[in-house]
């Protein structure tokens, strides 16, 4: 019976399955180790792709632990597209349901951050909003305005000190994480995505604004969380990092 690709694939990702019939070595003899080359190639390729996607998880867990995690992940969630630059989208959910690591509750958010950094790296280029135009608007026009973020800019909500964890893992000599909630804003000035720590009020403002709220309405929601919320501090951060694509002011 001919070897079909379904048989081949089943045995590839599951070493408990028998090697398909009809595969031979150069002398026409059945062979196990030669099929193992393909098994190994697939597992190594997918594991390496995950290491490229999640370098902070590799640092946090250690290489050996990550390899074990990756072996389970690639069987549960093999890629569903040849675009390996986007592989690993299921990792946050996989980590949430992974009992052996359930005591490290922030791991899913770290995975979310790493996926978002990669998406930002490959996101479309746009001409950013020129912040100098802000000076030509009256305050009442600004609060009635709406904006959209650049494709490379995104917000990661979290209750964990995600920015501190990222910095502590990626920069030598960085201070230890503090016990605070640190949502993250990712921006890309030119080519390199950069995370910025936000306050929960700033994250709430961005969430409302990206949902279509006016800057003023979003400000009311942010000040309900933190009366000290300052709109212009956050607008300056966004403008300096080329994070605004469009700024729409109502016509008076």
């Amino acid at each position, binding site marked *: 019976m001919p070897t079909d690709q379904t048989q081949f694939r089943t045995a590839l990702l599951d070493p408990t399955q028998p090697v398909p019939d009809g595969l031979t070595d150069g002398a026409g003899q059945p062979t196990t180790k030669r*099929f193992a080359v393909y098994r190994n190639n697939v597992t190594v390729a997918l594991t390496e792709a995950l290491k490229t996607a999640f370098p902070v998880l590799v640092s946090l867990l250690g290489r050996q632990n990550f390899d074990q995690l990756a072996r389970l992940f690639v069987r549960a969630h*093999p890629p569903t597209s040849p675009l390996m630059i986007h592989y690993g989208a299921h990792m946050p959910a996989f980590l949430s349901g992974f009992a052996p690591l359930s005591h490290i509750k922030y791991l899913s958010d770290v995975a979310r951050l790493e996926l978002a950094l990669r998406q930002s790296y490959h996101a479309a280029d746009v001409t950013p909003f020129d912040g100098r135009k802000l000076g030509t608007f009256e305050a009442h026009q600004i609060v009635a305005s709406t904006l959209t973020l650049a494709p490379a800019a995104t917000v990661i909500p979290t209750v964990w000190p995600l920015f501190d964890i990222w910095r502590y893992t990626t920069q030598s000599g960085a201070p230890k994480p503090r016990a605070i909630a640190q949502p993250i804003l990712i921006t890309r000035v030119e080519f390199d995505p950069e995370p910025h720590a936000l306050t929960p009020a700033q994250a709430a403002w961005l969430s409302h604004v990206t949902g279509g709220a006016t800057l003023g309405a979003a400000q009311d929601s942010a000040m309900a969380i933190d009366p000290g919320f300052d709109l212009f501090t956050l607008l300056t951060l966004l403008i300096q990092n080329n994070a605004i694509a469009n700024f729409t002011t109502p016509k008076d």
Partner: protein
Amino acid sequence: MLDATRTPPRLPSAPGVGYKSQHFHDLRAAPGPVTWLEVHAENYMGDGGRPHAQLRALRDDFAISVHGVGLSIGGEGPLDKAHLERLKSLITWLEPASFSEHLAWSTHGAEFLDDLLPLPYTEATLTRVASHIDQVQDVLGRQMLLENPSSYLAFADSTMSETAFLSELVRRTGCGLLLDVNNVFISATNLNDTPEGYLDAYPTHAVGEIHVGGHDADTDDAGAPLLIDSHGRATADPVWALLDHALAATGPAPVLVEWDNDVPDWATLRAEAERAAHALATAAAP
């Protein structure tokens, strides 16, 4: 069958290298004999950012070859139309001198397995692969080159040799061939064939590009040599000798050095390209 009048210019018959983004500055500062670059299509299928910016800068100084690793031309199922459209958009804006893919499969159902998996050489496979190549060439509006695989095993139900299979694909589809001499050496060693015998039976008239690259050595369960296509080291001496043999048959051709894992610094990779330049010069000498 492809309309050959629409085929764009070919790659130069000179050394090229597989492009790695970490070489961007060093490569442009001191390209040595390198006049063209090959990029893996799927790494440039994001929406923008540095990958696209680098390609836009590089194409001013180098001819570009787009090398796909995700189309699964040998797959039992239909080609992924969305992926074929992504290839078309990349090729439309980049206008490369060449597009190539592999005689292999990598997609099964909805899954992408990220490896180049082997095919039995039968009439059924031939019909399916030829129809996939026709579809690719129709959608892209250009000739594609098909690369011979590195084989670790054979299929008992194969009814023809790999060279006969490739010859018939060329005849049916008008595609060109990417002759990977490292893969020829690996497959011949692993399957008790001689690499020179393979080349003598290979349709060298259809070659549009040649690959060289490094491999690792292992043994199988019977103690027989088992070479693995790793692209993680310098090209082995017998593969350079096989390049000379191939160039004698093909005449001047674009020769690419592949080094995809444990990527060395630019000077080391350029030295490999210089070796390819020497092989091309020797082959061209009267």
